[in-house]
């Protein structure tokens, strides 16, 4: 178990976080760049002196401001994998991994390094220097090196930030498998919500140095309950409106936002109250003619304004009286002959809409 809290100010930036992570658990610290994620990791690792706080790692107190106790980084037994891996450029893969094993006998060192080389599939690369390795191989070496001294806590700072999308996807699942082997508590920092979903057992969302949400990644990322978090994770459609009517029978309520009415899941909110409604672009369907016989509750006519292609497909912007963003594949956009000016119907299931912030006053 590792737990703690920190309250500090670094160059005018205020950091106020608390955490708890159990053995074998991956706690994802999620936030945009500049949110204070790396500062938090550096403070835990002992690379940054903080003003106030308490940090316990594997039952050992490493920082206690009340007793003026601060253990330097080399005495904390915390594994750290920074963003760029920082493999020692003058040492081979094997020497990088054995670097922190200075208090073992040569036989013990060989035994442990061989075990890690096998586990991380690095046997053939053991004599290579880091600059000969691919991004993925470097990541495996960095991880093996951090785990070699058997740390009581492992800190991973944006482990995929230096990689392209393809490698990122591949390594994410590879890392997930490797982490399953380990019983070390892990704190992983990321600004990518796919990392959080695939790797995290729990998520801690921080913004401007403060914790704004925490809980189950699937639950939080799927249905963010605060506006800051919703915009942080890039919920494409966020609307402010008010409750027109409630139907306990259907389990839904009608909300008016701009010129449209949306049917959304019912909540403990009175008629007339103001609400923030979120819909993910991937939950918005498009039809080029009126779709008969559908169970979806929200069918709104509109006109395509623009199409933007990115690595995840095409984002279609549609004017329905308010801007709605939908995510479709390239093939779907081609089949539907989508282009600026195309008349379409926007289809949103009531259950795909969620309330952000409960209510907004």
């Amino acid at each position, binding site marked *: 178990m590792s737990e703690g809290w920190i309250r500090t100010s670094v160059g005018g930036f205020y950091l106020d976080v608390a955490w708890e992570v159990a053995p074998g658990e991956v706690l994802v610290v999620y936030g945009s760049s500049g949110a204070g994620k790396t500062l938090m990791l550096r403070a835990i690792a002992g690379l940054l002196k903080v003003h106030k706080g308490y940090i316990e790692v594997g039952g050992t107190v490493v920082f206690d401001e009340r007793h003026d106790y601060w253990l*330097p*980084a*080399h005495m904390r037994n915390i594994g*750290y994998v920074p963003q760029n891996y920082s493999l020692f450029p*003058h040492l081979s893969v094997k020497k990088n991994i054995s*670097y*922190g094993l200075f208090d073992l006998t040569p036989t013990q060192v060989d035994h442990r390094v061989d075990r890690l080389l096998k586990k991380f599939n690095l046997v053939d690369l053991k004599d290579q220097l880091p600059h000969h390795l691919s991004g993925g191989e470097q990541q495996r070496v960095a991880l093996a090196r951090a785990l070699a001294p058997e740390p009581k806590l492992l800190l991973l700072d944006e482990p995929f930030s230096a990689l392209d999308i393809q490698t990122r996807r591949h390594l994410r699942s590879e890392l997930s498998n490797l982490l399953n082997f380990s019983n070390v508590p892990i704190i992983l920092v990321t600004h990518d919500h796919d990392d959080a979903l695939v790797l995290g057992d729990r998520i801690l969302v921080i913004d401007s140095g403060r914790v704004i949400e925490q809980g189950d990644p699937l639950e939080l990322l799927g249905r963010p309950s605060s506006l800051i978090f919703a915009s942080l994770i890039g919920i494409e459609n966020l609307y402010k409106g008010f409750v027109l009517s409630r139907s306990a029978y259907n389990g839904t309520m009608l909300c008016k936002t701009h010129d449209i009415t949306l049917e959304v899941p019912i909540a403990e909110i009175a008629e007339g109250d103001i609400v923030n409604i979120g819909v993910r672009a991937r939950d918005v369907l498009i039809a080029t003619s009126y779709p008969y016989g559908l169970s979806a509750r929200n069918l709104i006519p509109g006109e395509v304004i623009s199409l933007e292609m990115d690595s995840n497909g095409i984002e279609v912007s549609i004017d329905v009286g308010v801007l709605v963003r939908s995510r479709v594949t390239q093939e779907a956009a081609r089949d539907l002959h989508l282009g600026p000016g195309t008349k379409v119907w926007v289809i949103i299931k009531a259950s795909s809409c969620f309330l952000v912030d409960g209510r907004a006053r």
Partner: protein
Amino acid sequence: MLFPIIALLVKAVGVDDFLPTLSSKIALDALRLSLFSSAISMIIVILVGTPFSYFLARSRLPAIRIVDIFVELPLVLPPVVAGLAMLMVFGRYGLLGRWLEPFGIVIPFTLVSVIFAQVFVAAPFYIRAARLGFQMVKVEYEELSQTLGVGPLQTFWKITIPLAWPSLLGGIALAWARAISEFGATIMFAGNFPGRTQTMPLAILSALESDLSVAIIMAGMLIFVSFLLLTILGFLRIKSGD
């Protein structure tokens, strides 16, 4: 640049008394003194200059720029001025000298003053190169080393020094070459006493007044020794992967 050196070497080898002069007491004494004093100077420069350059490289204090100016001053100062300045400090009536003399400590015109003069003029060359070398070593490597349980001092030995090694060797080569060829500050501060403070450059000056060919042979010797030193250090740099 190469032409005067070749001309001097050709002339030196062509002198009739080449071998006897080469092995004469005065030449060997001067050579021994030059090598010994410059070696001691380099040990001092490395021992003091390495942590100091590291401090300069890692410091973020604005006042460091002022320290920089003082460190690099000997590079632009005429060596004679440097010698004179050292006399003002360690001379019989100098700032420190007047306090040292009652204890029987006299520095000017001794081997110690030769070493002081060499350290004064050579140290900036080493400190500049070492500082640049340390600046090129990313702080992240040092931090990572510490998260692996290795303390700051051990990290310095195991990570910082090996990564800055080519620059350090480059600095040693330049500083040693400067120390061994030091003339102006030495003659001002240490004098020109054969066997005691007369290094090779001073011996060449003395020989010049009596016998040109002896001066030429000793100059050739000095070039050869400097060349040998730079070659060895250059080879070590290549070996360390610069």
